[in-house]
């Protein structure tokens, strides 16, 4: 089957597509508009990069992970873990605009300034709507992208374009789990001689993710400077000072997110989410959880500690840390179970997770 048709049939038409953009930016056929990925015209090739880069095409995720991470670090629920921290940006200016504690913005700035990466692909929204991928080369521009939109832009298309240009040799990319997985699929180089310069990916920064939202319908809630989804017991989304009942938002959750097994961006050098410690929301508000997964990630975080770029908050005693880890694992495992269930309900198999069935067996109810 033509590559383009296979991807369209297996992923797009089945609503598995995440709109990550990994299939885009390399050729004129795949496009995205307002959160939806589609083909304009058909490509005639049997084999193409699009279908191999797509995070929703079947792949052996276990082998992929072992290829890039140390086996000893790999956990079933959270992927590779070298360390878990509670952090926030030391600079209050970053924190003022950031999603939670500004850890991501501070780390990307540092990585750019210190040469870990020479460019960064981020996502920028006007307020909280219509996010777009952005290629950033000046550390001073990183802050303009802080904060989150819950709509899903095809940011990986911007990465692909930047890789194609071959001007930057160590590009960092920040993305939700679907996006970071695709970055590793790119680095796995399905075609040795046609890799879109995947070696130019310098670092991958993961964002925790529960789900993303559709374009259509979001405008009804109006624009805001800042949007946040509170811990589950609050059951609400805050848009600046406005509180929106989560039940009004949930219908806009992208269908594909129901099939997503990954809450913590397991494929990444490091992953950042909102802090959810045992101390409760009042203390956690404005703090991040940070999982370090690779040596490169470790080095960057250590440097941030040395330079005072990040502030670290202790979990309390060891048991408090273990409790936090446990809570995170439970939340993550719950996302995996739901995804596995949804996939089985959809077509009786694990779908794109089928080649990795062994690692998902424990989540099948």
């Amino acid at each position, binding site marked *: 089957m033509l*590559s383009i048709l296979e991807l369209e049939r297996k992923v797009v038409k089945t609503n598995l597509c995440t709109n990550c953009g990994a299939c885009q930016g*390399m*050729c*004129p*056929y795949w*496009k995205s*508009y*307002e959160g*939806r990925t*589609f*083909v*304009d*015209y058909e*490509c*005639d*090739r049997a*084999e*193409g*990069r699009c279908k191999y880069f797509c995070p929703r095409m079947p792949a052996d995720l276990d082998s992929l992970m072992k290829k890039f991470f140390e086996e000893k670090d790999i956990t079933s629920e959270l992927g590779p873990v070298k360390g878990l921290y509670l952090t926030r940006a030391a600079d209050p200016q970053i924190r003022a605009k950031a999603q939670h504690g500004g850890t991501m913005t501070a780390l990307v700035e540092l990585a750019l300034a210190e040469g870990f990466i020479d460019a960064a692909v981020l996502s920028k929204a006007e307020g909280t709507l219509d996010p777009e991928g952005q290629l950033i080369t000046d550390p001073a521009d990183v802050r303009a992208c802080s904060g989150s939109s819950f709509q899903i832009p095809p940011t990986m298309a911007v990465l692909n374009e930047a890789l*194609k240009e071959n001007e930057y040799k160590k590009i960092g990319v920040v993305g939700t789990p679907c996006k970071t997985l695709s970055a590793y699929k790119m680095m796995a180089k399905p*075609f040795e001689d*046609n890799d*879109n310069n995947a070696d130019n990916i310098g670092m991958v920064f993961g964002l925790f993710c529960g789900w993303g939202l559709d374009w259509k319908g979001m405008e009804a809630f109006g624009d805001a400077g800042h949007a946040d989804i509170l811990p589950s017991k609050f059951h609400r989304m805050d848009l600046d000072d406005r509180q929106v009942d989560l039940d009004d938002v949930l219908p806009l959750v992208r269908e594909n997110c129901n099939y997503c097994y990954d809450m913590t961006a397991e494929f990444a050098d490091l992953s950042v989410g909102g802090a959810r410690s045992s101390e409760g929301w009042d203390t956690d508000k404005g703090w991040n959880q940070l999982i370090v997964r690779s040596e490169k990630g470790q080095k960057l975080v250590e440097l941030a500690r040395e330079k005072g770029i990040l502030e670290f908050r202790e979990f309390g005693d060891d048991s408090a840390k273990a409790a936090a880890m446990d809570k995170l694992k439970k939340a993550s495992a719950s996302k995996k179970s739901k995804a596995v269930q949804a996939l089985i309900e959809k077509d009786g198999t694990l779908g794109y997770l089928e080649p990795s069935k062994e690692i998902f067996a424990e989540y099948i109810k």
Partner: protein
Amino acid sequence: MTTKNEPGKTYLMQGNEAIVRGALEGGIHFASSYPGSPSSQVLGMLGHIAEDMGFRAEWSTNETTALQSCMGASFANGRSICIVKQNGLLVQSDAIHCGALGGIKGGLVIISSDDPDSHSSTNEFDSRHLAISANIPMLEPASVQETKDMIPYALQLSEELEQMVLVRVTTRICHGRGGVELGELPEKRPFTPIGEWDRMVGINWLHGFLLEKLEWAREAFEKSEFNHYNGLDKAKKLIITGGTGMKYTLDAIEDIGIEGEVGVLSLGTLWPLPEKLILERLKDAEKVLVVEEVDPFLEEHIAAIAGKNKVNIEIYGRNDIIPQVGELNPEVVTKALKEFVGIQDAKASDAVCGGEGCPAAEGLTIPERELTFCAGCPHRASFFILKQALRREGNHGVVMGDIGCYTMAGQRAGQYGYHFMSCMGSGISAAEGLGQLTNYGFNQPVVSLCGDSTFFHTVVPGLINAKMNDANILHIVLDNSATAMTGFQPHPGTGETAMGHETEKISIKALCESLGCRVWTADPFDVEETTQLITDLIRTKGLKVLILQQPCATLAAKTRAKKKVWVDTDKCRGENCGCDRYCSRVWGCPGNIWDFEKNCAAIDEVVCVGCGVCAKICPAGAIQVEEPEDAEGKGGSK
């Protein structure tokens, strides 16, 4: 085409020129037309000579206006001809029926050109049925000479009967060539003032009179020199032909060598049929083969004559041994004749109508080529953009087309961008109806399209209908400043007349705005901006009119300096993942070709008109465009 008065002299002429010459010899005062193949060129030629020859020639907005202006000229005893294609005749249908009831004064001849096999049409309708329905006399020439001769005759007959006369011609006549012996050019006849009590009104109490006129015509046709008999007298095997059927038949008889066996009655006066003449031949015959273009028109009426007169005879033709669809050709007629006379070597039903049927081409395989837009055609860009905009919507929408060059959008040239196509003017009205369903749960964007000539032809009433009914559609006018499909005839938006005079251009935009429509204009060559505009318009509720302006490439080639376009072979990604020959395979301009030796895209410099649009869509930025040198000799790449 000669305008000289040289009776007896012979010229080689195309059928369409013979129509012009016939009109001159018929002493016309007025000629009108809306273009349509295969007779599109006739009025253009008349327009060129009208000034010198002292008559008025005009392109009309559509075929109805064309015929009715002839009727006006006829009222003052002016002679006129109206030239249309088969669809045009159908457009005139009401005007003909009502006009025929009222009758005419000065001779009025309608020339309707049929296109068997639809070489340059969307159908092969047979004009002849309309003569029966409207009760008017009809003729069909068998040769180019007869075409010329028939027109003055038809004008004369029309005047004598005070009735319009239809002359049916076909593609092989219009585009064929033959020697034509000229007749005399008459003195121009003065007009007759229209008296206070003179009338031209189509009203039902004239119905009986209308039929009476037809009987007078029949009397005249019994003795007409346009009906011929060849071959064996009192033939048991009789062949009856209409129009070009005669030539095919006589050639085939000679080829097979059955001259001594059959007789051929060739009819030029097709309605009303000369019954006595036909019966005279039928009574000796045992079986009849009817050879005619398209429908079994003569075949069925001859069967009726035979039945009415209790002549027991076998009748063959388009209903059996000649295929029911497609154009006659020598092979079909030869096989039919053989089967008719009982030669066993071939079965007629094996032969296929249409194609070229040229024995010389046997054994040669000619590659099948799809119709496509010319290099640099703005329609290619328009459909490319439209498809992209609709794909963005996640709903391919419904695109309701019309007739013009852009009809080719139904094929690869326009990214298969058509869901609907019927007759001229149909797109917008069909879209209006479909679009109304969006108020009742139908959930697809509805887009209609038309060209600028078609806009004036029949779209305007459809647009008014859409406005009045608060349609929910996007209507796109593909304004290429031309009636391109049929050869650049002037239309109300072009600012000139058939006789080469300037006339005030009618602005499509102003006209739409005057109806209260919301109107946008854009350039299809601004690929990105126009895609976004269409995306936004598709989402806007209500009636939207978008005029996409960019002159037809053929016109542009005459006025614009040609930009040089070439492919930077180092940048071209060619067949690789990331391009897969986007320019030559998807965009599909004939100027974008594939260099099989270098395995790389190339530009066919002869074909390329330098529009530069492919450079905008090349994913590798490999296509380079060099601006033409300006007055100061500066050029440059971009």
